[in-house]
């Protein structure tokens, strides 16, 4: 069962390659991190229209991978390469990666007191428009753009007047991340433990929002078909969102990849199966 080569066995492999990670090594550069190497040669290929899931134990590097991809300053890439939509990714600033179409849903979304959700979303959306040479939207135009997104995610408009994540419950914070995802409509959305800290009902709501987003994005001919990369500990999330590919990550590497059946094997035999 142990396989170090990377083979996609999922069903929907027909799209273009959107993300190509080759032999990626990265270390933590914070004082506490002590320069410890966390990613030890990650290989990963994601194509348009695919939903990937990376599963692994605490500390295996799966959250680090998501942070490195979006340019978190706590990590330094020591070797390897990443191309996103055919272009080198690693030299870009975090905001440039966002403009290029990469999005990370944070495990612990940050509270921004004093700034309303609607202003924050508009600022982010306008930054994206500006980067692509488009005209910025004024508050009224943005409202017209935003309302269908809210309806699509079945979110209460009162969400918009509240300050970004301030006083939000765990479930509300995660749904707010999905709202940002829907507004920025990235080519690749990375969901870092979107299921953590959620009870069953909240998880169902969040998963429904994600599925709603994917379905709407696929229908929308004006945007490219997105891909998703989900980082999770638990199979439970995958019951709500069907992945096309499941990866097992151990000690800084992806050690196996396969269809969603892999999650079932993991459930039965545990990570020992790959150790």
């Amino acid at each position: 069962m142990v396989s170090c080569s990377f083979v996609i066995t999922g069903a929907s492999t027909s799209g273009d390659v959107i993300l190509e990670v080759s032999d990626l090594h990265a270390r933590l550069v914070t004082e506490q991190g002590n320069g410890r190497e966390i990613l030890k040669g990650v290989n990963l290929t994601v194509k348009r229209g695919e939903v990937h899931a990376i599963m692994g134990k605490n500390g295996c590097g799966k959250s680090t991978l998501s942070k490195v991809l979006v340019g978190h300053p706590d990590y330094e890439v020591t070797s390897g390469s990443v191309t996103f939509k055919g272009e080198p990714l690693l030299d870009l600033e975090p905001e440039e990666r966002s403009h290029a179409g990469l999005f990370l849903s944070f495990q612990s979304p940050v509270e921004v007191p004093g700034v309303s959700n609607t202003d924050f979303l508009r600022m982010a959306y306008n930054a994206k428009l500006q980067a692509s040479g488009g005209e910025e939207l004024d508050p009224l135009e943005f409202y017209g753009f935003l309302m269908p997104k809210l309806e699509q995610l079945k979110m209460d408009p009162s969400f918009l007047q509240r300050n970004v994540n301030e006083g939000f419950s765990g479930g509300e914070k995660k749904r707010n991340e999905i709202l940002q995802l829907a507004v920025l409509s990235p080519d690749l959305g990375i969901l870092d433990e979107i299921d953590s800290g959620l009870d069953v009902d909240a998880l169902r709501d969040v998963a429904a929002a994600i599925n709603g987003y994917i379905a709407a994005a696929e229908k929308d001919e004006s945007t490219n078909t997105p891909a998703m990369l989900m980082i999770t500990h638990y199979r439970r999330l995958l019951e709500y969102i069907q992945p096309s590919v499941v990866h097992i990550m151990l000690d800084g590497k992806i050690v196996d990849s396969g269809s969603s059946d892999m999650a079932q094997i993991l459930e039965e035999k545990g990570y020992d199966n790959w150790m």
Partner: protein
Amino acid sequence: MAHTTHATSMAMATHKPRNAQCTRQPRSAIKHAATAMPQSMPKSTATSEWLTSALGSAPPPTSDAQTAARAALASLAFPTSRDEEWRFTDVSQLEDAPLTVPLTPSTTSTDDVLASATFEGAHRVVLVDGRFDANLSTPLDEMMSSLPSGSYVGTLASAPESLADLRDAYDSLASAPPVTEPLTRGVPEPGAVQPPPPKPTDVFRLLNTAFATPEDTFCVYLPAGTKSEATIHIVHVSTAFAGASAVSASFARVLLVLGEGAKLDVAEELVCCDENADAAVLAVPVLEAALAPRAKLHHAVYQRFGRTSSSGGGYESSGGNTYCLKSTIVSQAEESVYDETDVSTGAHVGRNTVTVSQRGPRTATGLRSFTLASAPSQTLDVHTSAILSYPEGTTSQLHKCIVGNASAKGVFDGNVQVLREAQRTDAQQLTRTLLLEPRATIHAKPNLQIVADDVSCTHGCTISDLDDTSMFYLQSRGISREAAREQLVLSFGLEVVEKMRPSDQSDGDAWKDLVSRVTADVRTAVS
């Protein structure tokens, strides 16, 4: 952090956990040095020539309080850094020129500064150099007719004799010893509550008492069970009427008396013309409020001396040689609610001293401040004192400060006293400071004195640059580093600014003028 101090044989357990004196280091991590604070500083007993000569121009005393204030001042020294209360706030330059009070109305045009002080739908009360100006204010009869029957607005001198509550409030204040609490309404039953220790004498408040006559005291009185629909917007305008030769001093005094269950929203705005005058402009406004049981007072303060509001362009001004040393003294009877939000951006030296005394059970006090010291050598100081004497009182405090200039500093001193009878009280205090420039300085001294044993008291004090995680969060959403930084600094202050608006007015437009002006000013200052 929850601290519960059990009553012991000691008269009072003092908890001074963080006496933080912090200067942002140019490169390395911020040092959070806790230095021991001497319990009592040597106090100079020398009298001050400046004070004695200032008193020479005070009006003849018309009340016991004025007599007492004059007597106290005659024996006091001018505050220096050797006084604990003035350790970090330097007012010594005031002594360079003699103090002068306006004998005739100022000739300076107040048009521009008043045009920028908009507040749609509010009753405007303008005090120029401490004097009520009827021509610049909403006509008094118009205010009176919109207020509930039995209310009063106007000077204390013109108040009808029948308003016993108003007179009582003034008299009890007037007869109170100047060194302790100002309002002695609802005196605790004998033996029930240990009286608070006397506080050091505040020279500037005493000066206000000595100078502010009943003609200078502006009052708002609401009888029991009534409520003012309109906000009272009090604009204090200071001018450099004395020119270059003397300190232009003004002593505005406002008295708010709310009957049982009465409800009032008040916004004070403090502005200054002629901020570039050679001699100092000194404003010493005092606001006193007496809240009867279940009364509710919402109080917002915006001090922007030497700053141009919203019209733009005024923010590089240093605030000139201006001093705004404000005191707010509140006495709360049982189940009353006092809610104060103070935003200060202007003046060379700005200080707001807020003293709240809870005089009955289940009393609620909310105190917030946001100070933004961004001009060279600017000092902005917040002193708060909350005295909880009865059971089940609450105080909730949030004090934020941004120091955005290498030579500017912030000062915070937050004292909470929970006396023996004040069981089951809940006192929360949080202080947060952003130091944005190398060598920018904050002196923060939260201090809790707790005698009761069944209480929940917390305090927290953080001093930092912007949080990296927040920066990254915004950047990851496509917002540039510069824009993210500006947004986060603004958001830091807006958390307090938006509380200037009463919570029951969150949907209305009534406070939009003020809150959006303050927001725009803060945005200009931090960008």
